[in-house]
């Protein structure tokens, strides 16, 4: 107490100065409406910048949480998007409720490779999260691969950077379909074969998934035609394409389950080979 008093006595002049200064500022504030509004303006500016700083710091530390939240939201939106893009495949002129047999789950890539000819990924969701073998893996800008095997908490995925994997694709503006496969070098350079010559092509046409494989729903955009050649002898185009998504740089992915897969599988078995 004595010390506080001593300090008060020692610094009585600055204290008196500050008190009186505060008093005169109050006086200034109450006497003139111009100064009042100016002071309010400065006060607002200071509080805004302080609030801005704290908001920026706070939001930086919340980024991870926000990302997860957005991913959850995207999962729902992705399902809706795929549903709307699949209209031509499951169209119903009688306006009966259309079935959309696909379900979307979000996951993270925890291991990715792209240097080999047969590449694989590992994602952090497994059988406990409802992941099963042969489910499709996509991102917001394209497809990534197909689930190969599943453990309790993880799953391995055959990357589309794998020359064994062939994806059924079609053109966005015509129904001509073909097969997409990796060329084996640059992770975004792919080729499309088996598109018949009577289809009309142009450079820059968009390729989407064809929806015939039971892995992928129809209408996921994949990439653009960068160049194409007519092979007169075989009667098919040879098309080079560039993917929208670089499969070597993905982190957030969605796993798609086809609820009708078993049904389709049974049906296929009955067909003569």
């Amino acid at each position, binding site marked *: 107490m004595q010390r506080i008093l001593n300090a008060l006595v020692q610094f009585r002049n600055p204290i008196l100065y500050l008190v009186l200064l505060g008093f005169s500022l109050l006086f*200034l504030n109450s006497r003139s409406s111009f100064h009042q509004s100016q002071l309010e303006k400065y006060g607002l500016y200071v509080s805004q910048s302080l609030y801005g700083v704290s908001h920026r710091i706070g939001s930086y530390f919340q980024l991870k949480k926000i990302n997860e939240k957005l991913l959850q939201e995207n999962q729902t939106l992705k399902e809706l998007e795929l549903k709307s893009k699949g209209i031509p495949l499951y169209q119903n002129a009688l306006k009966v409720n259309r079935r959309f047999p696909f379900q979307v789950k979000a996951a993270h890539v925890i291991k990715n490779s792209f240097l080999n000819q047969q590449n694989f990924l590992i994602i952090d969701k497994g059988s406990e999260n409802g992941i099963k073998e042969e489910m499709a893996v996509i991102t917001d800008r394209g497809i990534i691969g197909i689930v190969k095997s599943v453990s309790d908490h993880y799953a391995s995925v055959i990357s589309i950077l794998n020359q064994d994997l062939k994806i059924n694709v079609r053109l966005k503006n015509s129904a001509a379909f073909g097969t997409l496969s990796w060329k084996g070098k640059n992770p975004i350079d792919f080729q499309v074969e088996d598109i018949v010559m009577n289809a009309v092509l142009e450079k820059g046409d968009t390729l989407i998934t064809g929806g015939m494989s039971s892995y992928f729903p129809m209408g996921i955009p994949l990439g653009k035609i960068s160049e194409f050649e007519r092979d007169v002898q075989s009667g098919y185009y040879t098309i080079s394409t560039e993917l929208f998504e670089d499969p070597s740089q993905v982190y957030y992915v969605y796993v798609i389950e086809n609820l009708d897969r078993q049904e389709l599988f049974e049906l296929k078995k009955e067909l003569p080979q």
Partner: protein
Amino acid sequence: MNRNILTLMGTFILLVLLQVMLFNKLHLFGFINPMVYLFFIISYRFDSDQTLFIFLSFILGFTIDFLSQSGGAHSISALTIAFLRPVLIRNAFGVTAEIPTNFHNDSRTLNKTIFLAILIGIHHLLYFTFVFFNWNALYLILKNALLTSVISLTLIALLSSLYKKLNDS
């Protein structure tokens, strides 16, 4: 001692009246109102109690604010000047040199002028800053502060020599 207090009060009241009734209505060249009441802050004895001095200066500024319907600009600038005066004294008269007990009794004209110029300059700068209170009016603030300072300085120097003469005789 009693005579001192009386002189102090007399000077105080006289300066307030002079400022409010005469100099605030001068409008020299249209915009210059010299602030002669700073004479009180200058002539207050250098060796007296600083706390009382700060308080008195505040009252001085406040009274002038109150009587001339200005906001609080006089109070703020007078208060600040009073608070800073010991620093200014040390800087103007030298840290090691003998510091006079009274402004008017000192004979070093250069030091006195420097002291007056710094004190009046700071006061006027603060005063006009608070009057305009807008960064866009920076040019106006500087112009007003500079020109008014010159006139105030001249008047206060004149008053000081007059005061000295009166005291000596």
